[in-house]
Structures are given as C-alpha cells and as structure tokens.
C-alpha cells in the first residue's frame, strides 16, 4: 500500500519537533533551518500550519529538471532528488507551485521531502498527530469518520 503524509493543521501546536526530526534524519544535526517541512505560525489568527511537499503525481519539479536529478521512488511514491546529479540550477524551485523544493547554498543542491524512504521522521516526532503517514488513497478517512459520527442515525434494530 502506498502511503502519504497527511497534515491536520488544527492539531499543530508549533513545537517544531517535526522540523528537528527532519533535519536530524537528513543531516545528522538538529537544525530546523535545514528542515524540509516548515511550520508556519499565523500569530494573529492563532493558527499553525505544517507544510511540506505533497509528492505530486505529475510533478512540476521533476518535469522541469534539465538533468533528470529528480526521480520517482516507485515503492513509496516519493519524488527524490539525486544529489550527485543535481547541478543546483534551481529551475525546479521556480517550477514548483508550492515552494516545497528549495536550494541549499552550503552544498549547492536542492532539497525536498523524500518521505525518509517510507518512514517519515516528522510524523514519528509529532506529539499531537498533526502529521501522520497514512494510506495514500484514504487521507480523507478520518474526516469522513468525523462526519459519519455526526450523522444522526439510530442503531439498527437486531
């Protein structure tokens, strides 16, 4: 079964454990500035929103790359940057409508979420289940269940 990251902003508290986990997974240091998931804090609305790559099926970044440095990990559906191939031209960062692929000045390459090879560190680190890793075909399941629970139907008689 293919899975995908599922984000429920209403559960996010802004603790940034996801950013720390992401950076530690990929760089070996705790460094939110290298995180591939970012939490945005809309202070005056009291909203916090984690945001990262949604792994588009037909990915703008992948299509734009002139050197084919972005490839599909078919097993998990992730679009993955091959650092050895990336030339740092940044065309993908222009192509991506969501801003979720970004250039790293220190290494001269781009980086994006790669789903940690199928076991995303951000989801494991989230203390409130604002970030989960669920069946890619059923990311709406919890929301459906919530609405179903509100349906005012009597239990069927035996």
């Amino acid at each position, binding site marked *: 079964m293919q899975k995908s990251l599922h984000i429920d902003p209403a559960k996010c*508290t*802004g*603790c*940034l*454990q996801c950013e*720390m*986990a992401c*950076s*530690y997974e990929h*760089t*070996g*240091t*705790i*460094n*939110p*500035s*290298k995180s591939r998931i970012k939490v945005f804090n809309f*202070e*005056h*609305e*009291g*909203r*916090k929103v984690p945001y990262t790559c949604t792994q588009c099926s037909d990915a703008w970044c992948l299509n734009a790359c002139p050197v084919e440095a972005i490839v599909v990990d078919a097993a998990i559906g992730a679009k993955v940057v091959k650092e050895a191939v990336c030339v740092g031209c940044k065309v993908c960062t222009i192509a991506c409508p969501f801003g979720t692929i970004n250039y790293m000045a220190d290494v001269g390459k781009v980086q994006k979420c790669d789903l940690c090879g199928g076991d995303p560190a951000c989801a494991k*680190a989230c*203390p*409130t289940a604002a970030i989960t890793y669920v069946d890619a075909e059923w990311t709406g399941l919890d929301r459906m269940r919530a609405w179903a629970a509100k349906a005012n139907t009597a239990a069927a008689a035996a």
Partner: protein
Amino acid sequence: MGWNRKVLRVNLTAGTCTPEPLNMKWADDYLGSRGLASKYLVSEIDPKVDPLSPDNKLIMSTGPLTGTMASTGGRYTVVTKGALTNAIACSNSGGYFGAEMKFAGWDMIIFEGKSPKPVYLYLENDRAELRDAGHLWGRSCWETEETIKASHQDPQIKVCSIGAAGENQVLFACIVNDLHRAAGRSGVGAVMGSKNLKAVALRGTQGVSGIKDFPAFMAATNAAKKVLADNAVTGQGLPKYGTQVLMNVINEIGALPTRNHRDVQFEEAGKISAEAMHEKRSSDGKTHLVTNAACFGCTIACGRISQIDQNHFSVKNSPKYWGASGGLEYEAAWALGAANGVGDLEALQYANMLCNEHGMDPISFGATVGAAMEMYELGLLSKAQIGLDAPFGSAEALCKLVEMTATGEGFGKELGLGSKRLCEKYGRPDLSMSVKGQEFPAYDSRGIQGMGLTYATSNRGACHLRSYTVASEVLGVPVKTDPLVTEGKAELVKAFQDATAVFDAAGICVFTSFAWTLADVQPQVQAACEGDWSMEKLAVVGERIWNMERQFNLAAGFTAKDDDLPPRLKTEPAKTGPAKGLVNGIDKMRPEYYQVRGWTPDGVPDQATLDRLGL
C-alpha cells in the same frame, strides 16, 4: 558537548562584539543557562553595583538541552542584577528565541557597559553587529519585532526586545520574545533599557551538532516525552486548560490571594478561570480561547492564544487588539484579576496584551495596582493623585493604569516603581505584598504554608518558580504533603529549590516537573553532555547554584531579615476556606530551613557547606 562552547561578549560602551570560548570548567560545575550565566555574573560584577548603571551586566544564556529535541528544550535565561530587587535576577523564557541562539552557534551573550545611543544586536551565525536602533526606540515589542524582520527581509529572524516599559525603566519591565513570551520578572527589561539596548535579533542556521551520543539522546528524550504524554497534568490538564487550570483549584483551597491579600478566595474566580475561557461569550458567541500553543520543542503546549471581545470597552475603538494574542496564563489572570478584585476576563486579556506589547511583568504590575487600590480605599491615595477612581474591582482603572504605567504617564510613573517603593512613599510599607521588593505570585502562603518559605527565601525575590511546592502541597506531585502545616516544609522547599535549579540550568521548562523528576532529566543531560552527569552530581549542581546565588545576595547587602514575609501574612489570619484562622508560619520554618541548608542561624552558608559544594 551539548554546549557550543562559544560566548559572545558585547561591550555596548565601546560598540564591540568579541567571541570567546566558554569556560568549560564552569560548565561542568554549573551545567548551563541559569547556573552558568549566574556564575559568569557573580564573577564579573560588584554585588553592590547599581542595577541600572553601566557597571551591571546582562547575560542571555541557553542550556545544553536548549535547541534540542528534548521536550521543552527551547528556553533561554536572562541573568543580571535585578532592577526591582537589587538581588540576583534570573528570568527565563520559552518561545523560539533561545533555540535560535543555539542554532547561531552561541551558548551565551554577555552585554556590558552602556551604548551611547539606542542599538540592537544583530547576530547571524558568526556575524555579530551592533546596529542603530534610533528608529526602533519608542516602538512596542510587537512593532520592533515586525520592523526588524521587515528591514532585514527575513521573516525567520527571532527577536527579543524591550518596549516602552524597559525604555522608561519601569522597575518590573520585562524582555519579550516571539510577541508574547517573556523573561518576565525582577526588572530585567529595565536593565536592558538602561544599557540603551533595544533588541536582539538572531538568525541561526548551524543547528545543534554537539550532542555527545545522539542515539542515546533520542532514546532518552523519547522516553521522557512519553512520561509527559502519559501524565494527567502535562498530558491532559495543561494542554487543554493551560496553567489557568489552577484558578478554581487554588480558589477552592483558600489560597487565591484577593484584593492585595486581604482575602484568600475570590468570589468571581470562576469568571476569570480556564473554564470561562472555554465558554461562548454572550456578546459575540465566540470563546475567549482560540487555541493552545507550544514553545520550541515543547510536547506539553500549555500556552494560551485568545481573542478579546471586540465589543469590550477597552478595545472597541482599537482594531489592532482584535486579533488572536497570547494569554491568559494563570499568573497574569490572577495578578490582573483576583489581586485587585477585577472579575472581567476581557479586561484582564486587554491588560495582559498591553503588558506583552510594552514589555511589562503582569504579575508585579497587577500586584502593584492591587496595593494602590488598597491605598485608594484607605484614603492614602486620592482620585486627584491617581487621575482616576481606583477602587478594588475597577476594570476601567486597570485598563487605564496599564498604559499609564508602561509609558510613565502621570501616576503610572509611580506604579512603575513597584509596590514596595510605592507603599513606602505613601507611608504604608506593610501593604506591599512582596519579598526583596518583588511582588508575590498567585498563591497565598496562609493556605499553602510551604509557599511562604519559598517566597521568603527565593534568591530573586518572591517567586513561585524557584520551588513550586504547590505541586506537592496541592497536587500531590511527587508526594502529597499537607498545605496547612509547616512541618517538613524546610526539607521540601530545599529539595524543590535545588532540583528546579537543575531544570533551569539544563534549558528546559520547569512545568515538566509536574511529570518529571531529576531521574527523567538525568539521562537526557547525560546523553547530551560530555562528562559525568549522575543523579548525585546533578543534585550537587542544583545546590551549588542555589548557594552561589545566595552568596551574591549576601554580598549585595541582604540579610536574614530579608527572608521574611509582609506582616499581613504573619498576623492577619485567612478569613475563609480551608485555611481559615491560619497565618503563615515563616518564623518557625526559616530557622529549620537554614539548618537543613547547612547555613548559620543568620542565613549564611557555613564553611562545611561551602567546602562540600566547592564554593
């Protein structure tokens, strides 16, 4: 490791920024943050220095767990000689600022001297610059943060700053970071203002790499997070209700100081409680509370984000206050509310927002208003002197006085002196509910006896965060003790004081101690830091920090006479509730405490104690 091993020394007089290596011997003796910064302070300043003179220093420090995945590992501490207290001051804050200092590659920033003109420190990794803050002076903490981010075109900068209160040297001015987190107490913001230092802006992209044993650290932090999640207080009560969960609890046990401690129960406590924040308002159908919020790394998330009623008299013509904003936390709700008899939740949120906006400690501000209201009712202060009617319970007075105090307008200038100086000025020093010049927080020590000893002996003046015996005496953490008796409280207070010093020095939040003991902290510190960090060593480090702070205060001129409570708490019994008829037994507990501490009957650490602690 755990530390970056780098200190930035900023000489504001000369305008220089100089890196220097962290004193690792001291790090081994004092761990970090509160402990390590205090060691630097006491080694570098004359204890008798005027807190507002250029000879005082102001230190901002992280701990070894700051900026890590340890839950609540986002705190930084401001250490200086307090403007309000003349004692050692140590105020810590959450938000995101502390972690950013660590990510920029620094453990600590030491500010010394006084800038000839307003400046702010801009720190981007190794690059440190003092920049002109002429355009920021006069701006609020909120405007300062926004302006700095905009002018650097970098929304990821983290800022701490002073507002009007710090600029005007309100003696309980604080330092605000991330809009509504604050190094709140003892007037650290006034010291910052006296140095013409408006703000510190940080951007760090280096991260924390110096964890001694990463796999062990991850295992230890994950285990400790589970302890927090499984605990009823840190896993359920605090996330849902915030610290405000205490309002009704403390009122019911008769320990909610009301109307300048005349009473110990507030008849309108329910109206300003956590439960009230969850209720829909009749005016607009919305709840006061919008959401909870976490500081950096925190898996508890006790923070409150609320939205004031736009129809409330305080803001109906001020749209800038209509958005979501920080508050109310229990201490602020108490100090702005019960302490002066105001039961209007929206008024409290307004006053709290102005405290954040202008950089003012809501505890000392609210409690000082309470003292002024009592003097107004006694006829010692007139309407003409204050500029308005100020009886207990007046939400209008509260809302006007908060702005007047921050900006130093009219009678606000006198409120800005704090209750001790204010009450002395009008001939009633006994009406100041303070110790060492710092106002009490939200627990009446007639109903929670251990808190009387906590306040009397706190090294930074009256404070609940030096030894929160409420945990034991009211909530039964880690063991239940009887709040109405003095027996055993000397030992209890010492144990809490020493353990809390370690939590503070590590760079984590003391609220974890509802669920964690030192045994939960120890594996995290051990995995992060090189060297031996056994339970035994941490216990000694905590006690060493406490005694070091004590020695500074003794050298500054404090004596055993200053380890005392105002006469009201010793002579006027609680009128209602479970503590009815009781006063605080501080005179019985104090000598016991000195003995438990290994201090002389005059409250001075004896030679054996100093030798044992290596002081």
